């Protein structure tokens, strides 16, 4: 008989109130760090000092925070509802593209060709904007699209998938198909989203220049606060009755059906919520990283989101955030120190975590705590 490792069910600890006192303290500390400490260290402390937070560090942490939001979203659907999506990158990218369209319009006539159209449309010989760009010069409208487009795609895809009761591995595979098809579509220059070049060279947001330290810090703070806000939101969600049903669906879906709940509604709801979260993360990512390109929709990128959640610890909400920081931090370090070994490390991480650490880092910490 092949060996079977015991998988302890994720414990559902009844909470009084949303979080424990210690956890609220941690949240508060995080808010101070993001909104006060980092701005001070970056903007006010002089560049040569040991305490200065470099622009590079700020941007790196901001990028990882956006990824952490995705990891959080993944935890909601995988850790708590048992749906493994290998295509969440498409929602991240769609939100990013929606924001990117607005930023491209904001370039105005400062592109290489000094025309009011983005450069890639000029070399495609297009004289007017396609219908998809209809509202792209309005900030409010594009921000709505950041939420609506991933949400709508998730709704349609999820509705049909969950209604046919597609589950498990089949579902994961068709999410791969979805993101792959989207990636191919966006790589086409004729689709009107910049093809392989994507969107880049952003200048302004709301007519304020993007490349200034203060704007960067502002985006950093917004990203950080969004992450914390989503964390609290997710915490509230899973502690509610809705969250209980989700976890029941994860553990025994057929039984839930027999008890009278319609899993379709719950799964669809959490699916759309997590897609919108990813979309917002994408929208925050783009102005800070400065480029969006269909590579974000690649199947490999989506699979990485799953590993952040797995490494950190599924079903814990804080775990995936830690996982995202850990894996991306390691990636940054490896690709400069030992570039050839990065993929070995990542691959080994996938294998080790699934076999030895099914509970992730949080599980490891908890075991140590229980042991002492």
């Amino acid at each position: 008989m092949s060996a079977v490792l015991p998988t302890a069910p994720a414990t559902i600890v009844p909470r009084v109130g949303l979080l424990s006192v210690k956890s609220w303290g941690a949240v508060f500390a995080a808010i101070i760090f993001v909104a006060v400490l980092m701005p001070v260290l970056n903007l006010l402390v002089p560049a040569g000092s040991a305490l200065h937070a470099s622009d590079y560090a700020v941007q790196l942490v901001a990028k990882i925070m956006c990824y952490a939001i995705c990891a959080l979203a993944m935890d909601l659907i995988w850790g708590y509802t048992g749906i493994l999506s290998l295509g969440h990158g498409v929602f991240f990218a769609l939100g990013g593209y929606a924001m990117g369209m607005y930023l491209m319009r904001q370039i105005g006539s400062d592109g290489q060709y000094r025309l009011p159209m983005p450069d890639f449309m000029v070399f495609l010989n297009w004289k007017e904007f396609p219908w998809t760009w209809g509202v792209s010069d309005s900030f409010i409208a594009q921000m709505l699209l950041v939420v609506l487009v991933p949400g709508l795609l998730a709704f349609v895809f999820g509705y049909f998938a969950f209604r046919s009761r597609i589950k498990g591995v089949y579902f994961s595979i068709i999410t791969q198909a979805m993101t792959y098809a989207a990636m191919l579509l966006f790589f086409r220059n004729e689709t009107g989203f910049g093809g392989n070049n994507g969107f880049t060279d952003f200048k302004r947001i709301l007519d304020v220049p993007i490349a200034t330290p203060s704007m960067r810090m502002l985006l950093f703070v917004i990203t950080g606060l969004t992450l914390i806000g989503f964390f609290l939101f997710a915490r509230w969600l899973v502690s509610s009755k809705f969250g209980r049903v989700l976890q029941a669906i994860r553990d025994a879906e057929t039984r839930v059906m027999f008890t009278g709940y319609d899993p379709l509604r719950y799964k669809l709801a959490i699916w759309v919520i997590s897609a919108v979260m990813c979309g917002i993360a994408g929208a925050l990512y783009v102005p800070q990283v400065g480029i969006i390109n269909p590579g974000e929709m690649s199947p490999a990128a989506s699979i990485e989101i799953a590993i952040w959640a797995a490494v950190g610890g599924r079903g814990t909400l804080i775990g995936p955030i830690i996982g995202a920081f850990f894996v991306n931090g390691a990636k940054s370090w490896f690709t400069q120190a030992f570039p050839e070994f990065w993929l070995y490390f990542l691959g080994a991480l996938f294998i080790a975590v699934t076999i030895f650490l099914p509970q992730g880092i949080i599980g490891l910490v908890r075991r140590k705590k229980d042991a002492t």
Partner: protein
Amino acid sequence: MRWLVLLLSALVLAAPARALTPAEARSLATGEVESRITALNAVLPSADEKTVALIQAMSDDAVKFTDTAVFVMKDGKGYDPVTGAEAPVPEAAEDVVNNNEMRSELDAALASIKLFATDDAVRTEAVKTLAGGEISEAKLPLIEKAYAKESVPSIKDAIGRVRSAMLLGSADKAKRLAAAQALAATGTPATKTLLLDRLKVETEPDVKSAVEAALRSIEGRLAWGERLGVIFTGISLGSILLLVALGLAITYGLMGVINMAHGELMMIGAYATYVIQNVFKTYFPGAFDYYVLLAIPASFLAAALVGAVLERVVIRWLYGRPLETLLATWGISLVLQQGVRSIFGAQNVPVENPAWLSGGVDVMSNLTLPFNRLAIIAFAVLVLAGVSALIARTRLGLFVRGVTQNRKMAACMGVNTARIDTYAFALGSGIAGLAGCALSQVGNVGPDLGQGYIVDSFMVVVLGGVGQLAGTVYAAVGLGVLNKLLEGWQGAVLAKIMVLVFIVIFIQKRPQGIFAMKGRSAEA
């Protein structure tokens, strides 16, 4: 220039053959292209067999030269073009290099000489070359002479067609009419263009209608060629998809494991082929064309071995947790890719087609079936037959089927399910290796080989269902043909997207795929 060559060569029959001089040999082999062509035209009318041999050697890129002498190379030895005696080739001798223009001239010169050769096969080839080249009236006298002299009926017909193509522009109306009617029997794109051009300037009504009739019949034939072409490309793609997805279908059907490292197992098979090719190149250069025959079992074994190791070391611990297996096998795929990069380098590696797999067979004038694709289709059929026989008729296959349908019951009956898992996984991986071997003959071999096919193989498995192998076959061939039909309509990318969307929708309607497993097995 070319018409001059051929007009002059028409005099070949009349003019006596003159021996090649060393100066002429030099002017043919060295110097600027323009002067070499002039020299070629000069020697052609009175070419003797030595001259012809030199021209042939130049066309075969087998001539070297130094400041003083020219050498015709054969089997590594140099021969003097004038006397035929062997001559030592100095180290500093350079190769005679031809550009496209020179090559065309050499081919035309050779064809015109060969039109009067004694060997039937040589004459047939010569007509083919001339028919494929430019059709110009200047060649007409030569063609008429050859037509008159020709005795073999099939070759006479071929020459007749070339003649008709030239006569289409003649001043004589009766000749044009006869030519148009004769051309209706051909089906080449070149004649179609000729007829179209003729139609624009033709004034005589009956010739015009004859041309139009000929056009219609040619277009009909060409349309068939195109339709068959699309079907062939679809089947070819389908055969590749089948090879790629077959192994995956077996492992998924048996263990419920979608192996994300499947693409890398294919890559291992392809690299095994590369290694075997190199071994043959270094140690058995004479038998190089047969390296593929050894590469097939080698790639199977290499991939099967890796697969067996993976199953024992990693996948076994994740039994019953398909989602984790997915992630773990993805991790394995990353490690395998990077491993291959470290050993072989990040670059693609060259895998040459053996001679019998290069080129193609011309079924129709606009339909060439490449040998390598035909071979892959045949190979896919063989592999399919082998695997079905294995599953249906051997003990191993019996156990595999049993464990797939009801693992616990099979275990109760004494089947060592753990070992069956390993064997089945090794089998699936071995088939992936065979797919890699096949892919090495049509595309790139590099560390990224697997990534290009992984989504496709999943789609085929998901669509086909895991009840029977037939599902995989129908899904693979169906998707291949569908993809090619759509590609002709909308282009490659949109075709692929439409196929993916189609699969997603199909799965909504029929989540188990085309051939589902019967019985009370619980949800996937």
